[in-house]
């Protein structure tokens, strides 16, 4: 799934609350930066230009390195993005990129099993990793005196993972990942939908067709040999960007990065991944049963890829439809009619395609046809008439605030270091903060209307009903 936080990004080291998995992470809204406020020239308007100053260099082995200083607290964030995700998986090996991610924590050539975590915790550090369709990220947040330890550990698994790999380790993490799948999907209400969505939305020849977590069968089939080959194919420094951000001296940080990463051998060149633009050529109506009390509706459309024209307008469409009490769907379904418990909308962006989702849960005594009808009416209205100026401003102001708010943390998922890596990966420009915000501030109501018109087509969408077992009558009715 694109921008896979919606379903399958797996944060592997810690528990994630239910909210986390269900959270629509508006990747383009969760922004981070150490802020530099440059005077703006908008006639007295109090406007700040977001900027995250950085230095960048490339090692001889191809490792792309980005450094950023922020001395707010004595912490350093080390954040590595390997430019490989589930979209690179082979048939019969779904879930492999994520299983591989787990193995990266199990020790490497000079780090005995368990000591990756032991040494970091003893230094007061935290770490985690996640996998989505496009990339796999790893981070350590450490007190600044432990920067070199983090670089040693990160470089050792980049260079020497296979020296410590064994079939036993693969078996161990296979069991853990299967339990992750059970906990996050099989044993979670409506989890069945998140296992099916990508398959229903993307055609079989598209690399977003299968879920990031993979199938139980394929997890069982994954072998030690697969691990060796995947590492050789995708885990070279030349397929990786490393961000070091926080309480650093950039000269010293560069020296340490060169010291620890220069001996990591360059990997095989990684050909760019491409895929035909996915098309949903019809309206698909599907019903699934689950162990739940209330039916839930998922409406899905294929939309422009991350940072491609239209992607930002669909973020705003999501807000106009379902953010806040005055958003159109919330106000009608939840506030006025009170027939739904919740409604959400999200543009889930990926490099090879995006998915726009509207989700709503019906209250007791209500079926999904009733809900779907209201959603269809509101989408028709938005296509017929541009949003009010205030609606658009309200959405953009919220997005702007989210940019500021997310500047506050340097490490972890969505922190500044992670964000520099995201921009580098998707746009080739680590400090893309101001440009990203400008994608939203430059929209006018007609842009939002035309995006809704172009992408929210009635004849090219998924209508997925998840109903309590034995209550198919609560699903959206079959096509007439």
């Amino acid at each position, binding site marked *: 799934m694109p921008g896979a936080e919606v379903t399958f990004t797996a944060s592997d080291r810690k528990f994630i609350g239910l909210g986390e998995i269900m959270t629509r992470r508006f990747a383009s809204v969760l922004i981070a930066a150490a802020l530099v406020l440059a005077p703006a020239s908008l006639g007295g308007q109090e406007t700040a230009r977001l900027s995250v100053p950085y230095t960048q260099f490339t090692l001889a082995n191809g490792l792309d390195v980005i450094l950023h200083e922020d001395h707010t607290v*004595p912490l350093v964030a080390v954040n590595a993005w390997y430019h490989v995700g589930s979209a690179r998986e082979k048939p019969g090996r779904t879930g492999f990129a994520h299983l591989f991610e787990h193995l990266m924590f199990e020790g490497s050539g000079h780090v005995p099993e368990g000591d990756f975590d032991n040494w970091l915790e003893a230094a007061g550090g935290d770490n985690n990793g996640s996998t989505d369709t496009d990339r796999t990220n790893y981070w350590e947040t450490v007190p600044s005196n432990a920067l070199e330890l983090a670089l040693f550990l990160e470089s050792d698994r980049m260079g020497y993972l296979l020296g410590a790999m064994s079939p036993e380790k693969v078996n161990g993490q296979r069991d853990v990942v299967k*339990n992750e799948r059970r906990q996050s999907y099989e044993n979670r209400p409506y989890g069945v939908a998140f296992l099916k969505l990508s398959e229903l939305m993307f055609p079989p020849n598209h690399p977003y067709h299968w879920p990031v977590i993979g199938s139980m069968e394929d997890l069982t089939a994954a072998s030690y040999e697969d691990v060796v080959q995947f590492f050789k194919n995708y885990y070279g420094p030349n397929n990786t960007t490393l961000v070091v951000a926080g309480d650093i001296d950039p000269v010293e940080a560069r020296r340490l990065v060169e010291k620890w990463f220069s001996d990591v051998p*360059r990997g095989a060149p990684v050909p760019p991944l491409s895929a035909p633009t996915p098309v949903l050529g019809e309206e698909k109506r599907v019903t699934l049963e689950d162990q739940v009390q209330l039916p839930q509706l998922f409406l899905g459309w294929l939309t422009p890829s991350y940072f491609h024209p239209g992607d930002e307008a669909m973020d705003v469409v999501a807000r106009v439809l379902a953010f806040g009490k005055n958003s159109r769907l919330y106000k009608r379904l939840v506030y006025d009619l009170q027939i739904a418990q919740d409604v959400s909308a999200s543009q889930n962006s990926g490099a090879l395609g995006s998915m726009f989702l509207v989700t709503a849960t019906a209250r007791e005594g209500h079926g999904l046809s009733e809900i779907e009808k209201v959603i269809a009416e509101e989408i028709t209205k938005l296509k017929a008439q541009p949003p009010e100026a205030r609606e658009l401003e309200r959405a953009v102001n919220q997005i702007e605030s989210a940019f500021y708010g997310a500047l506050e943390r340097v490490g972890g998922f969505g922190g500044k270091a992670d964000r520099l890596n995201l921009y580098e990966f998707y746009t080739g420009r680590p400090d893309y903060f101001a440009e990203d915000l400008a994608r939203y501030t430059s929209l006018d109501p007609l842009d939002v209307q035309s995006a809704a018109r172009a992408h929210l087509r009635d004849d090219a969408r998924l209508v997925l009903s998840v109903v309590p077992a034995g209550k198919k009558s609560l699903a959206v009715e079959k096509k007439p």
Partner: protein
Amino acid sequence: MSRESRAATALLLLLSVGVPAPGQTAASAPDRSKPPALGPVRPLQLPPVQKLRLSNGLPVLVVELHEVPVVQVNVVVRAGAGADPRGKPGLASITADLLDEGAGSRSALAIADELDYLGADLRTRAGWDASAVALHVPVKRFGAALPIFADVVLRPTFAVAELDRVRKDRLTELLQLRDEPSAIASVAFANALYGRDHRYGVPVIGTETAVRGFTRADLAAFHERVYQPGNSAIVVVGDVTAPAVQAQLEQAFGGWKAANPRTPAAVPAATQVRDRGIWIVDRPGSAQTEIRIGRIGPPRSTADYFPLTVMNTILGGSFTSRLMQNLREQHGYAYGARSSFDYRLSTGPFVAGAAVQTDKTGPALTEFFNELGAIRRTVTDAEVAKAKNYVALSFPSEVETTGDIASKLEEQFVHGLPDGWLDSFVASVGAVTAADVKRVAEQYVDPAKVVIALVGDRRKIEAEVRALNLGPLKVRTAAEIFGPR
């Protein structure tokens, strides 16, 4: 220039001066035989907590943080679900929920529209010990958001139509909890541990029966009784100066007068578990069994807070903890396993738990009890040193953002922690000894005296659970756990 072509240029230049070709190891490989030594720890310099008061006596705690042009302002009231009147569990929670559903002259929709337009994030909440209204907003819009914020705290209208709407939301939320194995397990565990007569035995959001019965008068009376300046504080963290923000807050909150200040009654200390018993909630077809094991823990005010924090880090509070390593890394029974003390004004729970694959329920329980027993017998100096370092040295990441620091200040106010506790946090952890850890493990973790709650496929797990002879086993239904619908 694209990243790829830039990299190619760099490579070309380096090749020309005789650096090893791609694929070969560089000549100057660093010494990887041991991890690099750590440098000296750079001390955390927290900006000072400035303690002010408004003219009505309302305390204001300010921390200036000028990195990002945002501010977090929280009004915290020292009364939460623990202050719910008898027979009305959930009243504090629904009262907090209604605060922004109409206040002053504005309707619920008008409040939401104006705050959303300002890019402000306003949340109302009630926990066990406190209720709060929290505002996070770009500083340039703080002045515009402040009057609405003050209305929400001081002048909620509690309109009947809004109450009825929120009531439906609550009832549905309570219904949906029955779908979630982890929620069923937590509620069953609290039921079993405290009994339904103790406030901690029923969730913060209450029961269906109570929620159905709440009237406008209940909410208004609760608000009048506990939302009192003598019972409250304001915490401010962000890109502001103390004098300026004090003047703004004086305007908005200086007129808040004590009507009839009364300290809410404390939640009584719970009776400790005396033996061992198991509850099973049947959930046919479950892929995993949710396990909760625990007993009554100490309140936040315990003198053992720091030794307990270090002990729990070793037992189940970190990735390298014994429970995580055993259940996940060694056996692969679960995605994760952990333990925690929930520190409240009164005696919150100690709980260990995991979601384990159904066919490993028995072995997983055995491993839980192995670890709960082992922590009382042996703790190594190396484990204590690692856990102390982890807790103390990772502390900066708990005070990084405006929201982080605000929640620490809330904790200080609600629990009456001494000034300077944040500055002495690291030293307090440092003072914990291995003997302290062993002592608190013996005192607070007693696997012979625990309640066990399991949610899973009874048909598949009951026999092997019984075979472990952990104690009397009772089967509970959702209706018994959650109360009648």
